[in-house]
């Protein structure tokens, strides 16, 4: 039980979790199917890709950087994995994950070298690789699409696999990755350094932190998670074309910010990022259940983002006032 206690999220995450429960409950009132095993399974399946990407970029955002190339990497990984499988019918899910990871690794290394090695701003670097990687998908795909019949049966079967009637395999992987990363970020030197680097970059240099190594590895990690997310994409949709996951990078950034990871770096957790992803998906589901036109989806996401950032601001101001009064009291 001690172990579980250690995983207990801080108050920011608990309050988000309560909002999530309320959102799920509210949606359940409108559409009772939402609360059944099938409903939960659908929610978790549809959140898996974004949630995995959120885990991938949360450390980067904590370090006051950003990775916009993730959605393009998902597209490249998904298309390339499908292509390899179509040409090699003997491939199983194992090869799929290996290929996906390697593609993500390569993109991550390029981003990492440019941002950490040359100290270029990550916003611009990854905006560049966003276009380059997507361009690459257009070129290599040559308008070829792939469907379920060209994909390994073992991969699709894994995509259909559900534990306890509600937990899909992909989301189980998300939970495992989340727990490992949460522990890593809290209890290892690398994890704490990430917070320090994002909190005060010049000071991080002055106290001799390994800024290059940490930043580089964060981008490599995000790349690999994006590559794996590409395989998750195939498992969910069982089809892929060159526009797969086009333009979804900002949806992931939004989920991470809604989950309480400060865009200015230094604070936030991967648990929060995953809850943020779930919350966005739940509210979308709730709106659909209410019969709100799907065209409103983007606008509502934007509104949610602004509400989240406003809530953060209110909390920050209150926190500052508390600290000030505490300081005055301490002095007496």
């Amino acid at each position, binding site marked *: 039980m001690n172990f579980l206690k250690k995983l207990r999220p801080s108050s920011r995450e608990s309050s988000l979790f309560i909002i999530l429960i309320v959102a799920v409950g509210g949606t359940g009132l409108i559409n009772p199917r939402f609360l059944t095993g099938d409903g939960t399974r659908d929610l978790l399946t549809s959140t898996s890709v974004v949630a995995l990407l959120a885990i991938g970029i949360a450390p980067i955002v904590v370090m006051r950087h950003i990775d916009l190339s993730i959605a393009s990497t998902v597209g490249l990984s998904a298309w390339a994995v499908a292509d390899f499988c179509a040409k090699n019918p003997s491939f199983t899910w194992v090869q799929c994950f290996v290929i996906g990871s390697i593609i993500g690794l390569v993109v991550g290394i390029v981003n990492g070298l440019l941002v950490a090695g040359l100290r270029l701003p990550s916003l611009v670097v990854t905006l560049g690789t966003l276009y380059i990687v997507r361009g690459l998908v257009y070129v290599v795909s040559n308008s070829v699409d792939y469907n379920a019949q060209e994909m390994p049966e073992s991969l699709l079967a894994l995509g259909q696999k559900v534990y306890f009637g509600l937990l899909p395999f992909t989301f189980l992987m998300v939970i495992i990755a989340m727990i490992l990363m949460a522990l890593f970020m809290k209890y*290892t030197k690398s994890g704490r350094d990430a917070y320090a680097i994002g909190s005060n970059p010049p*000071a991080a*240099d*002055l*106290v001799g932190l390994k800024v290059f190594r940490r930043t580089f590895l964060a981008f490599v990690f995000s790349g690999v998670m994006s590559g794996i997310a590409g395989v998750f994409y195939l498992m969910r949709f069982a089809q892929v074309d060159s526009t797969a996951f086009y333009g979804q990078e900002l949806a992931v950034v939004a989920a991470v910010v809604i989950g309480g990871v400060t865009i200015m770096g230094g604070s936030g957790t991967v648990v929060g990022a995953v809850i943020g992803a779930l919350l966005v998906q739940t509210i979308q589901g709730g709106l659909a259940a209410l019969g709100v036109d799907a065209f409103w989806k983007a606008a509502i996401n934007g509104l949610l983002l602004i509400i989240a950032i406003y809530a953060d601001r209110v909390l920050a101001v209150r926190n500052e006032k508390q600290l000030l009064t505490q*300081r005055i009291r301490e*002095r007496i």
Partner: protein
Amino acid sequence: MATKGDLLLQMSGVQKRFGGAVALRGTDLKIRAGEIHALLGENGAGKSTMLKILSGVHVNDGGTIKLGDKDFITGSPQASIDQGVAVIYQEPSLFLDLSLAENVFIGRQPKKGMIIDWKFAQKEAARLFKELGVELDPKRQARGLSIADQQVVEIAKALSMNANIILMDEPTAALSASEVERLMTVMKSLKAANKAVIFVSHRLDEVFAISDFITVMRDGATVSENPISKTDLQKVIKEMVGRELTELFPKTENKIGAVVLEVKDLTNPAYFRNVSFNVKKGEIVALAGLVGSGRSEVARAIFGVDKYESGSVTLNGKALPAGSPVEAMKRKIALVPEDRRQQGLFMVAGVNRNISMESFDKLTHRGMINFKREKSLTNTWKDKLSIKFANQADPVDRLSGGNQQKTVLAKWLATDPDLLIVDEPTRGIDVATKAEVHRLVNQAASEGKAVLMISSELPEVLGMADRIIVMREGKQVAELSRKEATQEKIIAAATTGKRSA
């Protein structure tokens, strides 16, 4: 463990060049264990460069640095830390999002296997804070700590690294009198533990109060190295400036006229309550008190940057609306803020653009800026305040701290204000420039401007002000005339709220 008096570090003939500019042309410094050593010199004398060589940010071009009998390795902050040299910068470089325990152990977290041992880190941090006599909560976030407490965290960090030599760059610049006293106690306890403490300061009264040894630098070279018993204030000032400085506070007796600013029952519960005072034409009124006692907040409220809940501000007999700096400027109030880099200047813009910033109305012709007028305005103020810069369009962040402060003053004096508010006008400025800033503020008063000055430096308050208002925890606790004011009375009022005899 070193014993008292051991030579820990010896720099001889150290040189450093940045491109064509020579920063150090042969500097000597000897640091002994169990000694508090003051490194003095005007801005640009090379003190910061010395500290940066020792902290591993710069590498010296010539000369030798010996650590005990070994060569000192420069070139990376990590190497300096490993050799037992720790630097506490003027602006503490803490990680505000992290806890105090984390800040103390950043980069060297104690581990149990793969995992960081938080319990041990917290216990150890608490022990260090206690040793330093400042019991901070190690689990607390660093955000919201006062500068003084942040320094304590930095010192705890240095101790946890087993540093023998602790360098402090102007540690007292942002501290109030009582915080300075606390820091001095800490420095003495470091000395008692046979550590060497080197500190840079422009506050000479403090230097003489605490140091054992004084090294004076001028133009990149060491001018003198003396134990405290063999030197005195006049001598040190002469060595720093290279000439005799006649008067640090050139106070003139001005004709005091009608009330310009009248503040009545000004209240903003978070920062200050029922503050009432006035400032007359030709008068300098000082707001004294500890940092955080609400002085700056009162000034900000008068200028309209912050709102206030109740009370009133009257300027030249007419009420000034709250919360509007634009209106305040129209009514001829000028505020020279405490933090010139963040609030007073546009650091990357040229000197000319900064000086003319608030005077655009006088410079425009049919809505377009007349650059000839801007140039002559800049030249006028350059001469009046003797601001030193090579080119009018030079960005202000290339100027020294003193010249930056003069630029802010020029910007506001160019608007010809009726009320000049200056917040810590000489923080981090060398002694010669300080005297010049004092002369300028006095001159503004003698021209009939009303001056409200906030300052943590008591000699400055006593030397400059006609009247002194002391604040403590948001309340106005004493008002002293120039005649009755003494250092002791101000400190007593600021720390206890009582007027002592």
